[in-house]
């Protein structure tokens, strides 16, 4: 009996009990119980440290990235040199500031945004997690952003807001396995579901109507069907591969998101209410 109630066991039982209680409150509380303020506070404390360490570490990290990925960098380098040669005739050089400016300006002329109210935000951090693919932006509830708001980059859909603090928000990326979006197939007007598959993998198209034909680089847009959480007509991805595996009725369709997360700097959060 004494061994059963020894201190380490009581400690671990207590910590697990508290964790389970937090989980239950989090899971069952829905929108009424929010842990966002706690999360926001922790982030607020760590943020200055993180920023200063980032600026100190970046050059070192770049050095090691160069060292460890030497062969791929060498390959990319020769590829880039070829591209430079072919572009030399008509290319003019653009500075980093100009690129940044054009990426911001590109957000001002998005045809698919239309008259929807929106907020421009800067991407400040990609979450280094293996269980959920997300990034943080520098605007939050103070700017009117709320849970579920669609987020678009210059080319199309970039994700949806899954957490909001006062001055920051977390956006779930299209490639996350828990992310799915209804899309419209332009060739026959039918709808399907595009779902993320995880880091480094393309999205898969589910519930495709048999007999649907796809062309390479065909752009799929949000369907905007009733109950859909995104407005209609936002480009989601391009079809990269479509085939019917032997013995299967359903087509295997790979979709590459139109947004390039590697170069995503600015986004537009659409202040859109489903059904609104």
């Amino acid at each position, binding site marked *: 009996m004494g061994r059963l109630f020894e201190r380490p066991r009581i400690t671990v039982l207590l910590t697990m009990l508290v964790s389970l209680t937090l989980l239950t409150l989090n899971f069952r509380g829905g929108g009424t119980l929010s842990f966002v303020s706690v999360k926001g506070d*922790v982030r607020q404390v760590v943020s200055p440290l993180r920023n200063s360490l980032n600026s100190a570490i970046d050059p070192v990290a770049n050095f090691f990235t160069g060292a460890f990925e030497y062969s791929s960098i060498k390959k990319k380098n020769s590829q880039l040199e070829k591209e430079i040669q072919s572009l030399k005739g008509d290319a003019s050089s653009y500075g980093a500031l100009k690129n940044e400016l054009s990426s911001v300006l590109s957000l001002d002329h998005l045809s698919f945004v239309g008259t929807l109210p929106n907020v421009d935000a800067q991407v400040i951090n990609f979450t*280094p997690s*293996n269980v959920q693919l997300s990034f943080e932006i520098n605007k939050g509830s103070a700017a009117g952003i709320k849970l579920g708001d669609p987020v678009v980059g210059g080319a199309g859909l970039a994700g949806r807001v899954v957490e909001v603090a006062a001055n920051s928000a977390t956006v779930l990326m299209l490639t996350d396995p828990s992310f799915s979006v209804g899309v419209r197939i332009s060739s026959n007007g039918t709808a399907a579901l595009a779902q993320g598959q995880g880091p480094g993998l393309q999205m898969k198209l589910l519930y495709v109507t048999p007999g649907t034909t796809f062309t390479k680089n065909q752009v799929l847009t949000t369907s905007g069907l009733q109950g859909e959480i995104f407005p209609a007509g936002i480009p989601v991805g391009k079809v990269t591969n479509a085939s019917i595996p032997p013995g299967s009725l359903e087509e295997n369709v790979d979709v590459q998101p139109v947004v390039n997360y590697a170069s995503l700097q600015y986004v537009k959060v659409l202040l859109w209410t489903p059904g609104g």
Partner: protein
Amino acid sequence: MGRVLNALRLPLLVLSVLVVQHTTVGSLSIDNVHPDLLLLFVCAVAVVGGREAGAVAGFISGILADSFLVTPFGMSSLVYSFIGYLLGESERLGSKRSTWLDMLLIGIGSAIAQILVTAGLFVMGLSDPLRAKFLIEFLIVGGVNFVLAPVMILLVRFSMVGSDRHMTSVPRR
């Protein structure tokens, strides 16, 4: 004064690990899989400090980890405190363990923790453990933590010097 500084070492270490995890270093990846330094910290504390220290470190680190993820609050702390306690059971082997065994325990513990978090998210309908790269994720997280274990063990030992949480060998009953 010295005692105060000693007591601050471990909290400072966990804060440093948290900051490093969420800066450029933590963003480095192998095949799109990120190292999990907080998990490494928990496993190292458990191996060095035993069951109770492991459970407490797991709980605190889990809460901190959940603060930066969109995962449900409490998921990482539940798994990390369990793993911390489980790895802390190694204190029963006494203090004459080899470094290799400690590294192995940390590598396996990290992989198991990653599996448990994925399983927990699956139960809550937030993740699919059968996604294409799940096995690679567990292997890379476990492997990286196995390699980094000696460094983290050294840091944790330094942080726990003078602390009564520092492991004393427990005779097998």
